[in-house]
């Protein structure tokens, strides 16, 4: 593969740079141009490009499978039948091979180390000790939170009753994951619902936070990669997908501090081993179908 490849991603700057560098090293003839932004902004930009009929990227590497399912529904994605998916569980790639998970970013609980209780279960957040002390990202603004909401409500043990119980306990829903980390590390609230790598990484640097994988299991966004139907350089795009799914690519994800999606790759420091992490079952297409309804119901419960 060779030529120019345009990538839109929501990976943090540093990670995106590392990924691109590693890929270019393996494929010296490909020149990757990448744009990095929050998922919402990347999508807004992409939607505007769609609306103007001139989408720029060949390749997307963005937060969650629901977004990808939406793009697939709108017939924006190209199927990559020959992708090598060895080592990937079934749920981790689209059955039509239009998008593929590249890592697991799980959503669990974070607590400030000065908090009275160390929660172990999702249900701990509805207890008296956590009253008014829980904050979580809003599914209205964060893709990961929407996936998490779908996973919770698809889970028969938790469901909407749990969400309502959270609201009754004074939990707040705000912005994205960065804000949750700040709120909990800064001590405005004691507990937060958050993606794993932020608190784990900050805790390692000394931030007063601790991440917990709850007993019921975690939800996960998988930062899928997909090739656009309109890709100008599909060959290079496929090479990029191959690289991400390869063992080498998965190891890179691990060194960046993320749980690799591929089995048999060592998780990063600070994470329990892969088989100890329980994932809640999740149906992306269902989640997409429910998305608007879920958001509406959520905002009714939490106001706004």
């Amino acid at each position, binding site marked *: 593969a060779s030529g120019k490849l345009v990538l839109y991603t929501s990976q*943090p*700057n540093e990670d995106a740079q590392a990924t691109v560098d590693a890929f270019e090293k393996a494929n010296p003839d490909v020149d990757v*141009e*990448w*744009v*990095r*932004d*929050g998922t*919402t*902004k990347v*999508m*807004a*930009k992409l*939607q*505007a*490009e*769609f*609306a*103007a009929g*001139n989408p*720029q990227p060949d390749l997307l590497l963005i937060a969650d499978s*629901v977004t990808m399912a*939406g793009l697939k529904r*709108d017939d924006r994605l190209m199927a990559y039948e020959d992708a090598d998916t060895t080592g990937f569980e079934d749920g981790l790639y689209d059955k039509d091979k239009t998008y593929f998970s590249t890592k697991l970013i799980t959503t669990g609980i974070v607590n*400030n180390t*000065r*908090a009275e209780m160390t929660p172990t279960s999702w249900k701990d957040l509805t207890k008296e000790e956590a009253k*008014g*002390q829980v904050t979580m990202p809003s599914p*209205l*603004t*964060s*893709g990961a939170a929407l996936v998490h909401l779908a996973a919770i409500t698809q889970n028969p043990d938790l469901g909407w009753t749990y969400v309502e119980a959270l609201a009754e306990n*004074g939990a*707040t*829903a*705000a*912005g994205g994951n*960065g*804000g949750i*980390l*700040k709120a*909990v*590390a*800064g*001590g*405005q*609230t004691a507990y937060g619902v958050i993606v794993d*790598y932020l608190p784990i*990484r*900050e805790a390692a640097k*000394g*931030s007063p*936070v601790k991440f917990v994988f709850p007993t019921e299991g975690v939800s996960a966004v998988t930062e899928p990669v997909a090739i656009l139907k309109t890709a100008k350089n599909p060959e290079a795009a496929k090479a990029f997908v191959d690289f991400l799914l390869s063992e080498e690519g998965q190891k890179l994800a691990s060194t960046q501090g993320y749980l690799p999606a591929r089995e048999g790759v060592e998780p990063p420091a600070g994470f329990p081993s892969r088989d100890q992490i329980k994932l809640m079952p999740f149906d992306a297409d269902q989640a*997409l179908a429910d*998305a*608007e309804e879920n958001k509406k119901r959520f*905002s009714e419960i939490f*106001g*706004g």
Partner: protein
Amino acid sequence: MKPRLDGEGIALAVLVVFVLLVSVLPVARLVFEAFAPGGEFDLSNLSAVLSAGSTWRATWHSLVTAFFGTAISLILGTVFALAVALTDIRAKAALVFAFLLPLMIPPQVTALSWAQLAGPSSPLLITLGLAPPLGAPNPLYSAEGIILLLGIQHAPLVFLSVRAGLRGLPREMIEAARACGAGRIFVLRTIVLPMMTPALVAGSALAFVSAIGNFGIPALLGIPAGYTVLPTLIYQRLASFGPSIISDVAVLSILVGALACLGFAAQSLFVGRRDFRTVGAPSEALRYRLGTARLAVEIGAWGIIVLILVVPLIALLATSLVSAYGVPLSEKTMTLGNYAEVLFRQDATVRAFRNSFFLAAGASLLLMLLAVPFAALIVWRGGRLLKSLAMLAEVPYALPGIVLGIAAILIFIRPLPIFGLSLYNTIWIIFFAYLARFLTLSLRPVVGAVQQLDRGLDEAARMTGAGYLFRLRTVLFPLLAPAAAAGAVLTFMTSFNELTVSALLWSAGNETLGVVVFNLDDGGYTVLASAVAVVTVVAIVAIMGVTALLARRLPRGVLPWAD
């Protein structure tokens, strides 16, 4: 009147084309998208969005927060301007300097630091050992909190506008009232403030429109409280899935634009019928002696500065000095590593400084040059065309930046028709968007100033046979320099760390400072983001300081912080 191709005619043509290009085009493109998503006429989105309860609730919230926020800006900005321009308080330059700096601190930072101040703990309070236990819900997460912060954030807009206006007030106007036996407050109420109406209205219109379009503050304080305003609603829409997003957003944007025009309509209502032309020359600044009250006023003024500048700045500084967010600041944890990282290791930061400086300086200078003739034409020539152009120039500023970004993408993603070159993915598309967004910021203060100007001064120059451009250069610019500079300062400061527009429009190598800060923050590197923000503030202080050194070469009153 026969069309003439003299200097004024050419200037008029240039300005009309400019405004059509930077203001009308993006707005028109959005309207088009609202009525014809993807190019096909279809009103279903329009009616769906307009019939949703959430749309109107958010509109109402936007109106309420913008209105009361503007009221706070108006009071705060006016009081500061009066204190600086009309009294004998000391250290005015420093005060002005400090009052303008909050424009440079991202509103989210201010919001967060205040939330921390009111909340249970912060690096600062933990360090001081004063941190309260993890506690009750934060009072700032409410409509009142949003209003308060919007008010503070936009007070400098009113301040600069009013201060420029006060410079043109002939002192006899006040003296005549004092001779009538009127006390200070009465003079203020009946003479100074009414005569400042154009400046006050210009400043509040800016504050109002800024508040309507502000995203950062309601996002941080409103979303947790379930209080949605139009920009946050738009953002939420953008986060949903599906092909109608752009159209939905366009519809909401039209609402935002309509609200902004409301502010403009109110402005014409206030200024339209009355007369504010002062005949004759403005005299040197007045100095009301405050006597014993001076110290109290000074303490009050600096107290406010501590609240709006020092507290957030310290929070920012503290955060930038620790290795990870939430780590208490102490001798042991203090590190300059974050600065080393952003300044020396990440070349994106330095590049972003360069880009942002170029964009901010370019946009503010170009807009300043255009604002003076444009304002003079609007006020003196009038006419419906110019009035509506002026109104339309307001809209891109009120739109949430992300929407303006979308509009720019819609327009520029394809190569320009005639030239065949594409602005997309270059720094020029950001420049274009800045011109669109900040035109009104540059224009409003100047319009206010022209309304107060004695037209005879221009007429006297015409008599000498001076052509339009010569008059512009030698008479209008110097006379309007304080207001034009106020506008340029506003533009420069707001665009220097602008985020929301450039967030959609940047491309590799063309990052802006706002983008860098946001990307760091969003990636969880809050401490690095804080370091960049601190460096930004330091850079601005340095730039302001350098300009102050040059102040002697500029017409008097141009630099608000060099008296």
